[in-house]
């Protein structure tokens, strides 16, 4: 028997057997879609279907409800503020952790990344237990009329806590990778530490800051667990969009809930799209 190439006989239907070097993707891909369908794709479609059930008019009417308007505006405002503040704090933290050597560096490094692992509800309770009326600091501040909980400020605090690691973890690796000679070159040229940071280091972090900001924004928009505790769910005062959706759903106003949910989902897609574009391009 000669050792010839496997023949493409008529009986050989399975493409994977005859062309070993190029396996057909159709089977695994179909399997993947079958798994993703009920998990992701169908629920997302359901939101949009329900949102437009009553027609465009009903959709817009649902969005014009003052509570809905407030919730969306408030969420966006908090998200921006969180991204901005955490941008500053996160960059500073990344710089200190990356560029300085001090005892306790490793434990500190681990601690600042902890919020990612803590359930957001626990974050909420911890904040209440610190600042709330019976909290460790709160019971001093409350009689003075300074109560951060159940205010927009409290919501901001919670969002800063929860999203802190995202900024840090996109910037710090960039700083770590930046070779020390990069900044040393600037020093030898005559740039002070501040000038070096501003003209040389910061621009190199641009990409990380942008990605970090997008991630922070997205997480803040969707934050529920800590917000529900810390805000007190006070409509027109501290009710974010996710809280609004939850409240409306519980009350049975599916259409109202869905309208805002659809807007949130759409916003998320837009952010995600930007993230992909940006990181996909590299730099």
């Amino acid at each position, binding site marked *: 028997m000669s050792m010839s190439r496997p023949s493409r006989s008529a009986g050989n239907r399975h493409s994977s057997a005859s062309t070993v070097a190029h396996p057909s993707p159709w089977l695994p891909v179909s399997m993947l879609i079958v798994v993703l369908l009920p998990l992701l794709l169908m629920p997302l479609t359901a939101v949009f279907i329900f949102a437009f059930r009553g027609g465009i008019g009903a959709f817009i009417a649902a969005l014009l409800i003052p509570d809905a308007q407030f919730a969306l505006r408030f969420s966006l405002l908090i998200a921006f503020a969180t991204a901005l503040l955490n941008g500053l704090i996160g960059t500073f933290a990344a710089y200190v952790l990356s560029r300085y050597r001090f005892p306790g560096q490793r434990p500190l490094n681990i601690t600042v990344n902890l919020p990612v692992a803590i359930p957001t509800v626990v974050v909420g309770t911890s904040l209440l237990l610190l600042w709330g009326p019976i909290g460790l600091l709160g019971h001093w501040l409350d009689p003075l009329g300074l109560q951060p909980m159940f205010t927009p400020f409290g919501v901001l605090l919670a969002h800063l806590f929860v999203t802190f690691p995202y900024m840090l973890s996109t910037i710090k690796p960039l700083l770590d990778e930046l070779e020390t000679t*990069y900044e*040393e070159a600037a*020093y030898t040229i005559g*740039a002070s530490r501040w000038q070096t940071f501003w003209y040389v280091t910061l621009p190199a972090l*641009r990409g990380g800051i942008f990605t970090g900001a997008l991630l922070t924004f997205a997480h803040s928009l969707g934050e529920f667990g800590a917000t529900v505790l810390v805000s007190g769910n006070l409509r027109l005062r501290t009710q974010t969009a996710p809280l609004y959706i939850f409240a409306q759903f519980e009350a049975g106003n599916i259409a109202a809930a869905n309208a805002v949910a659809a807007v949130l989902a759409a916003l998320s897609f837009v952010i995600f799209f930007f993230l992909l574009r940006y990181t996909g391009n590299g730099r």
Partner: protein
Amino acid sequence: MSIVLDQLIRWYGNQAIVDQVSLEVADGELFVLLGASGSGKSTVLRLIAGLIQPDAGRIVLHGRDVTAVPPQQRNMGFVFQNYSIFRHMTVAQNIEFGLKIRRVPPGERARRRDELLDLVGLVGLGNRYAHQLSGGQQQRVALARALAYEPKVLLLDEPFGALDVKIRAQLRRTLKEIQRRLQITTILVTHDQEEAFELADRIGVIERGKLLEVGAPETLYAYPRTVFTATFLGTATVLVGRVDNGYARFGSLQLPLPLDSATDYEDGDRVQILVRPEQVALSVTEPKSHVPVIGRGTIVEHVFAGDRRRLRLRLPHLPGVRQIAPAAPFGEEGLLVDTVVPTDVPLAGDAIWVSLRAWHMLKPPPRRLLLYDPAANTSVTPLLTRWLAEKLDATVTVLGIAATNEALDPVATMLQRYLDAADLPAELHLRVGDAEQHLTIEQTESLYDLLVLGCGESTDAGATAQPPDVRMIERIARSGMTPILLVKGSRTQLLRILICTAGGEPGKNDVRTGGRLARRFGATVTILHVSNPVRGVSLLVKTHLEQAAATLRALDVANTVQIYPSTTPSEGILHVAGTDDYDLIVIGNHGPIMPTLFGSSDVTRQVITHAPCSVLIVPDDAL
């Protein structure tokens, strides 16, 4: 003087990565700091730049002490090995950065930038980013950037290390041109010796934190002072021989000592010779008689290198000669010589005559003492060794022999304690196996100037007296050219020396060796001849004694001659030594092989066994 470094020290843990480096670089000079990886050269550069601080020492730039001044204010340009140009800025922006920081107006900045782009050969590439440039182009940008603000000094840290060979050559030429044109004081750090040769006005060789030598490339190549420099800069054949009768002797090869330093050498001293490949002459026929010949050998390696062939020849081993370079592979017994011939010269087969056209004597190596004290139970031996080291300006190595690998650690600890007790700084050589074997190896390799053997005998309270293993000592003494000092008695200084010219043969070596030591010790010498009570003293002996006294006088050593009649020489020697309280007996290694007038009694053995004080055994004359 543009740059002055004054005793710079920088520690890392308890290691000095920069160890008392002092250097002066002249205005407009291109100075290359050459060293292997980890030698500390980059650290020195970074200290000059101010990127790290020295732990001690000063840095002076154009008369201004900048040791405490931050890098921003030192007005220097620095070029890194990894370019480090700013990736988010264009080439033009990179170059202008230094000027922008200095608030130079945009018009002026642009003009200067164009000047520099032209200087480094990057015209038209001003708008490119780093990722659009090749490695060589990026380095040119780095150079332009460093020169933009007209610094006083340019520092380069292995700038071409990350580039491939052709580009490296190109950039070297560019750098040299630019440096000449701008006349800017430049320090370049590299491990590439070719680069150093091509670029440097002067080279500084640095190794393990120490600046070993500084000089022009050709001077360092032809006349290095140390072995390290000789072997680091180009191929070298380095041999160690001994000074004999005013000549440098390498087995059968005898060379005159260099005129200017002939007085630095004393007979018996070790001497090091450097031969560069181009200084070796090969021939098929025997060279003329005045040409120094190393021997006849065969080619064992040849490497084709374009315009020439590098050859390595193996020749028969020269007795008493140690080879430092090229490093002999394990098991190699012959002498290896590296040479170079033009490619078109045909290669002969075996028995090629290898002779020298020229050579260079390196600085005489420091004297070295080897101490072996197996009993290690008295303080006399280490104290005496310390005294010897001081007087002879020598370094001490202590040999520790353990029976097994496991016993090495305890031996090491014990020896360290032993050394600390006597405050004797020494290097420890630990070996497993047989003491005699190791001592013989050390002897034949001619590594040391003096072998000090403690034999555990002393008058210290509580020390156990151990008779010295005489046969072993004899065998070791016979195997090499190093004198052996057997420590006996309790003296820790040797100020009264008895030189024995026992037996009938002249023993010139004994007198010379004993005399040289006496001079260094500041000791007095008695030349003893034991005469036959019946036959008296012959004329020959009298003449010899006179000559010996004259030799010692020439060495400025106070001496007397004593003739003592005795039936056996050893008895006579021991009697005199005992009664007149000498610190050291100097005797030749006259074994039973040497026929003596008194029959076959072994004088040396008797003296070693029964002497009340230390004994110096001087080996037979070299061949």
